[in-house]
Structures are given as structure tokens and as C-alpha cells.
């Protein structure tokens, strides 16, 4: 998927997608993604098996992440340059939102 199409589809993206991309800046497998996101958000976001499986499939077929290896029937994934680009643009968007929200109680 080219970058423009990816932008259209993923910016803005859901919190689930955002945290999956964020956690795949390092190689991880399905359960590892869930654990990492749970830790990052202090237990606020607990991804389910179906959600991880489904989102990961979508991100992979859109070229934002790719499989790197398989170990003990577990597939490890990592973010691609396209994925990293999208993540960085989404981060910029969220920073802008954050600035606009400053001062709101």
C-alpha cells in the first residue's frame, strides 16, 4: 500500500491500532503485544486475542508491519518504514490535539 493510501486509512487511527504500532517498534508476537500495551497503559488497555489477531492481519496486509520470524509456532512482527512514517505523522497530529486541549479541565 502506498503512503497516501495508508494515510487515508490510518490517520487518525484507533487507540488499539496506535498502541499495536507503537509496541511493534520492537519485535513482538501476539501475546507480547498485549502485555506490552497493558504495561504501558497501566492496565487501561487490555487487548483481546481476536482484536490482536485481526488488527495485526490488517496492518500486515497494508504493509505497516511485517513478520520477521517464527519461533515455537509464534510469529514475531515488527514495524516497516511505511508503518513508522504513519506512526510519526499520527504522533504529530496527536501532539497538535494535545496542544489544543491544554487548559481544558
Amino acid at each position, binding site marked *: 500500500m502506498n503512503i497516501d493510501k495508508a494515510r487515508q486509512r490510518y490517520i487518525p487511527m484507533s487507540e488499539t491500532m496506535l498502541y499495536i504500532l507503537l509496541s511493534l517498534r520492537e519485535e513482538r508476537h501476539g501475546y507480547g503485544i498485549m502485555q506490552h500495551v497493558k504495561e504501558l497503559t497501566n492496565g487501561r*488497555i487490555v487487548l*483481546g486475542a*481476536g482484536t490482536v489477531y485481526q488488527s495485526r492481519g490488517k496492518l500486515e496486509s497494508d504493509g505497516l508491519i511485517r513478520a520477521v520470524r517464527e519461533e515455537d509456532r509464534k510469529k514475531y512482527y515488527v514495524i516497516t518504514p511505511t508503518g513508522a512514517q504513519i506512526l510519526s505523522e499520527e504522533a504529530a497530529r496527536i501532539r497538535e490535539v494535545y496542544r489544543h486541549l491544554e487548559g481544558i479541565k
Partner: protein
Amino acid sequence: MNSTKLCWWTPFKYAVPADYENWFEEQALEGWHPVKVSQWSSFAMRFKKGEPKRYRYVVDLQPTPRKDYKRIYEEFGWEFVGQMASAYVWRREYEGERPESFSDMPSRRSRNRRFFWAVAASFIMLAVGALASAGAAVFAPTAPEKRLELILSAAFCALVAAALGVVMARIRKNLDR
């Protein structure tokens, strides 16, 4: 004492995935656990009476699952109960907070949409069948008994299609659950 029972047409009765899951969960709370879930279970599912358990059931439709589909569910602590065609049934015992497999709205909706389109595919086939038989009965110059046969087949297809239409409407209304 009768310690097994048969439940008929369960996926058709509880066509909304969330309803089907809740129904399984209620059965388990009363101690009824499916003996084996496989192809024929969509018609008749055998349950055996045992210990009441608090199970969270999940149904998921995966026509072309990737190699590690089952592995991911198992890693997350789900037990594979069985599968009817491409409909997978999973469960997990719990206390306190009820575990979710589809933890956000977009993924829940896409799970439900997969069920919707599976039913829609059969609906379209039957609707086409009904129209083709009805058309042949009206336009094709055939013997009267042949014509009756065509009308009956059209009526049957239309009836089943209508039932599937109701199911589709129910799933659509419950896409968020």
C-alpha cells in the same frame, strides 16, 4: 437421571454472535457443557451435565485463518471448544471481570460483519434460486406437474431466504455487541 441433552439448530436460533456466546455461558453456569463441537453441531449439539462453571464463550468466523490463528487464542488463555465450518468456538474460565476477545468496537464490529456476510451469501444464493424457479415456472413451457415442482421449489427457497433475511436484520441491529 438424564445427564445429556441435545440442542437443535443453535447457531440459527442465536444468530447474533453475542447472544450465542451468552447462551453458551448460561448453559455452563447450569453445568451443561458441549460434548464435542464439530460440523454437525450446527444442527444438533450434545451437552453433558457436569460441574457448573463460569466460562466466557467466544464465537469467531474465520474462513481463511492464518497459520497462527489458534496459537494466538491459546496463548491468551482460550480453550478451543470446536468449529462448525469456519465458525470457531472458544471459551475461558473466569472470575471477576469477564474476558473479551474483541476488546474494542472496530474489531467487534468487523467480527459481527463477517457473520453478517456469511449469512448474506446464503441469502443471495437462495434468493437467486427462488427467482430462477419462479421464472422457469412462469415462462418455461413445461408440463403441469413440472410447473408445480418449480413453484414448490421457488416457495421453499423464498421461505428460507426470508428466514435468513430476518437473521441478517438481527445481526445488523446488533453490530456493536
